[in-house]
Each structure stands twice: as structure tokens, then as C-alpha cells.
């Protein structure tokens, strides 16, 4: 019985957790320019993330160690430094963008410029991490994150052509503006497949004391959660395709994005969009700060847990404190949140190989996973994702130059 509660919680967490500043921004930008055409990229990203999360969750449940633990233990410190640095830098960039997202939401609501919100947001986020337990953080953001369902409602109310949408779920090439098409595709993938997501998921499995009995919970949570979450991102793309594309509105500023729900949902639309942006980005802020702190603590062997009082894991709690304040600084200084988001998504996509390729080794290591090593389905998926990550690494820089804003 308790397991079903855990599954429900995990799924709900993923629904709200999937949508955050990166997914919202890239899906809406994609829909505004290319109508439904880029939907297949979201399918690819969602499926990849689902597989990666199931795997890092399985690692934790079977070996009782997180993915970060295993990166150090099975590959040695010398190798570990590489993913450590890559994930640290990239995730910090994304963390900054998420704080930017919350700040923009508050600006849209109040008219007070986003830069003034940066520090208050960091402080409140810090306070929640300082005083809250893992369950509180997980459940709180999960429940509130359900407001993101607004996009699904909005999309349906706009009466999309389901046939066209269905066809768009299959890969296609652009008939015009190739550079921009592939640039947005890469940034969508970076938004969907973020290392902090599957690293955090792995750490969360240990915080929640998962054991081998949780393997099916893990599979269902990773699968269903991302299915719904990805569906929401597609819903955001659909609303932009039906509201912006016909009018020739391209998205250059966050202020424009907010209009996307004002058409199908009227007055409630703007309010719900602001709430969605605010809550999902805030949840991601907490998640990323924790994810980086987990990576540091687990890699170096410090005492760590969100369930411990900060005094008991000083280095861990100092880490997330410093990180969240540091990430607020660029926003407080007025950095353009949308450009920052787009950049951080592309950089994320390029950084994937260092956290995907080691999984090829770990998921087939009998010493780590016993009889629960990858079957042929998981391995095939992992090889495809690994190849994708290398393609993204190679393509990222040229696309940023040619197709970026």
C-alpha cells in the first residue's frame, strides 16, 4: 500500500519537476517558430530521460549508493574530477536560469523588475533547504508543481489538429531556417536531459531509503512521471504553436511567453502561467542546489543528507547555501534571463557524454548491480542515448554560433 503512495508521489514530482524554465522557454520558442514540427524532439528527450532516471534509480536501490558515489568509487578520483567539474559548472548555470525564471514570474505579477527579486528568492530557497527535510522539499514542490497542468488544459482548449500533432511526434527535417531549427532542437534536448535530474533522482532514492523491493516503484515512477512531464512540455509547445505561430509572434523575451495562456484561458491564463513559472522554477532551484551539493558531498565522502540538521553535515549545508547565493548574483546584476536560459540549455546538451557514457559501464557491472544489470532493451536505449550525447557535444558550438539568438 505504501508503495503505491510512493509511486504516486514520485510520478507527481516528475510531472511538475519536468517543466521548468528551460522546458517552458524552449518548447514555447520552438512552437512559435516551427508549429508542431519539433514535438518529436520532446519525445526523444523525454524517453531518454526516463531511461536514464530508471537506471540511476536502479543503481541506488540495488547498490545502496548513489550514481555520484559510484562515479568516484568505480572510476577513481582521477576520472571523477571530469564529470564533477562539468556538472558543477553546467548545473550552476542552469540554477542561475531557474532563479531568473522565478524572478521574471514575480516581475510579471508585480511590475517590480526581476533583478530585485533575485536575492529574496535565494534567501527563501535557502531557508527551505535549511529547515526542511527531503520529504518536505520533495512533496511540497510536487504538489504545488501540479499547477503546470495548466498547459495541458490550455492546449486542449485550443483544439489542436490531433492528426498533425501525431505526425509531428515522428522525426522531421525543417523546410526552412535549418540552423534555428536544430539550435532549438539541441536546446530542447538540453532542457529535457539534464544531468542534475538523474543525479538528484539517484540521491533521492537513497534519501528515501529505497531497496531492491523498490525496483518496480523505480521503473513506474521514472516511466510514468516523465511521460506526463514530457506531455506537459509538448502541451506548452502546442499552445505556442496555436497562439503565436499564426500571428507571426516569435519569442525574444519572457514577457511575450506569458501571453500564450491568456488566449485559451482568459484572465486565469495569465495568473496560472505566472504561478506555473514561479513554482516550477522555484522547485528546480531547490533541486539543483541540492543536486550539486550531493555531488560534492558524495564524491568527497562527506556526511550528507537533507534530513540531517545542518550542523551535522556542515560542508554539505554550506555547499548548497553558497551555491544558491552565488547563482542569484548574475540575475541580481541584470543578466538577460532568456538568453541565459538558452545558453545553459545548449551547454547542458554538450556536457551529456561525461555523465551518460560511464553508465554504459556501471549498468553492466555485476559487482555493482548483481543480477539487476541492464537487459538488451536498456542497453540499446543507453547506447542510442550515448551516441546522441556525442552528437550533441559536436553540434552544440557550431549551432550556438549559427542558430543562436
Amino acid at each position, binding site marked *: 500500500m505504501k508503495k503505491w503512495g510512493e509511486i504516486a508521489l514520485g510520478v507527481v514530482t516528475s510531472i511538475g519537476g519536468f517543466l521548468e524554465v528551460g522546458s517552458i522557454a524552449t518548447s514555447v520558442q520552438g512552437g512559435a517558430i516551427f508549429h508542431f514540427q519539433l514535438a518529436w524532439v520532446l519525445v526523444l528527450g523525454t524517453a531518454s530521460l526516463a531511461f536514464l532516471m530508471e537506471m540511476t534509480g536502479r543503481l541506488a536501490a540495488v547498490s545502496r549508493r548513489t550514481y555520484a558515489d559510484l562515479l568516484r568509487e568505480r572510476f577513481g578520483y582521477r576520472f571523477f574530477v571530469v564529470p564533477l567539474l562539468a556538472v558543477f559548472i553546467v548545473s550552476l548555470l542552469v540554477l542561475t536560469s531557474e532563479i531568473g525564471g522565478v524572478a521574471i514570474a514575480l516581475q510579471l505579477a508585480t511590475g517590480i523588475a526581476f533583478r530585485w527579486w533575485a536575492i529574496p528568492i535565494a534567501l527563501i530557497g535557502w531557508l527551505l533547504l535549511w529547515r526542511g527535510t527531503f520529504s518536505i522539499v520533495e512533496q511540497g514542490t510536487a504538489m504545488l508543481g501540479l499547477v503546470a497542468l495548466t498547459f495541458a488544459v490550455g492546449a486542449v482548449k485550443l483544439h489542436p489538429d490531433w492528426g498533425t500533432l501525431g505526425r509531428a511526434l515522428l522525426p522531421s527535417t525543417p523546410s526552412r531556417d535549418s540552423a534555428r531549427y536544430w539550435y532549438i532542437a539541441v536546446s530542447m534536448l538540453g532542457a529535457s536531459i539534464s544531468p542534475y535530474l538523474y543525479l538528484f533522482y539517484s540521491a533521492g532514492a537513497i534519501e528515501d531509503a529505497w531497496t531492491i523491493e523498490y525496483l518496480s516503484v523505480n521503473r513506474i515512477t521514472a516511466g510514468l512521471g516523465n511521460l506526463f512531464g514530457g506531455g506537459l512540455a509538448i502541451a506548452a509547445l502546442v499552445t505556442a504553436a496555436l497562439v503565436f505561430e499564426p500571428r507571426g509572434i516569435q519569442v525574444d523575451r519572457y514577457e511575450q511567453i506569458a501571453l500564450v495562456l491568456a488566449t485559451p484561458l482568459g484572465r486565469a491564463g495569465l495568473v496560472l502561467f505566472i504561478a506555473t513559472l514561479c513554482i516550477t522554477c522555484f522547485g528546480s532551484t531547490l533541486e539543483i542546489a541540492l543536486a550539486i551539493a550531493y555531488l560534492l558531498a558524495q564524491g*568527497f565522502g562527506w*556526511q550528507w543528507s537533507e*534530513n*540531517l*540538521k545542518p*550542523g551535522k553535515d*556542515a560542508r554539505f549545508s554550506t555547499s548548497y547555501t553558497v551555491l544558491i547565493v552565488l547563482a542569484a548574483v548574475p540575475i541580481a546584476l541584470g543578466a538577460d534571463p532568456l538568453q541565459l536560459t538558452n545558453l545553459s540549455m545548449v551547454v547542458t546538451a554538450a556536457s551529456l557524454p561525461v555523465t551518460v557514457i560511464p553508465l554504459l559501464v556501471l549498468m553492466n557491472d555485476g559487482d555493482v548491480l548483481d543480477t539487476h544489470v541492464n537487459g538488451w532493451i536498456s542497453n540499446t536505449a543507453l547506447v542510442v542515448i550515448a551516441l546522441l550525447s556525442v552528437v550533441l557535444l559536436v553540434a552544440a558550438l557550431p549551432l550556438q554560433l549559427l542558430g543562436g539568438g
Partner: protein
Amino acid sequence: MGAVHLAYEVVDSQLVDRHEQKIGRVDALLLEAEPGKPLRVATIVIGAAARARRVGGWFAATRRALRALAGIRAEHESRIPFSAVRRIGDTIQLDVEERALESEHFERWLGDHVICRIPGASGASK
């Protein structure tokens, strides 16, 4: 106890003290060579300098230079005799106290001088 694979089961493994408190990872292992005696695994080293050296000489040298620039002299390293190993499993348990470890200096310093100044940091569990 059967054979222990040093590289796979010891180096980089999580260390815990008598009370299952995490105290870092095995950053280096020192062998001891005494004349007339066989080589044996003598010491577990926990410390940033040892870690840095494993990445490479250039890495360790850069780290030393940066610390010198910042005026940081002290190296807080723990050298624990291998005989203190109680259990080798998912984690390696050592017969030591976290409080007594030099390598935990920063953790204690942060706890005493920074964290505890902020309300809500200590006391009963969350």
C-alpha cells in the same frame, strides 16, 4: 577474510567511523617497506593533497601554488593505520572517532564557526 582487491574495494571507498559517520574516502594507500620484511599495506590516507597528486603532478603543483597565493599553509590530512579497518563492505569502517580526525578539520571548523551561528542549525532532528 578472503582476498581484498585493493583497487576495486579499498581505494576511493567511503569511510565511516565507529558510529557509522561518514569521514571521507580512501584518497591514497601507503605501502610500508621495512628491510627484511614483506611489503604490506600500512596506511590509509584521507586528504586533499593526496587526491590532487592522483590526478597528476601538474594538478597538485597548481593546487599548491593557488593555496600559497591565498596564504593557506596547513594541510589537514589523516593517516590511519590499516590495522584500524574493522569491516570492508559497501563502506569501510575504521576504528576511529570522527572528532579526532585531522582531515575532518574543515567540517568541524564550519560547524563551530559558521553553521552554528545561524539559527536552526543544531538541536534535535529536523
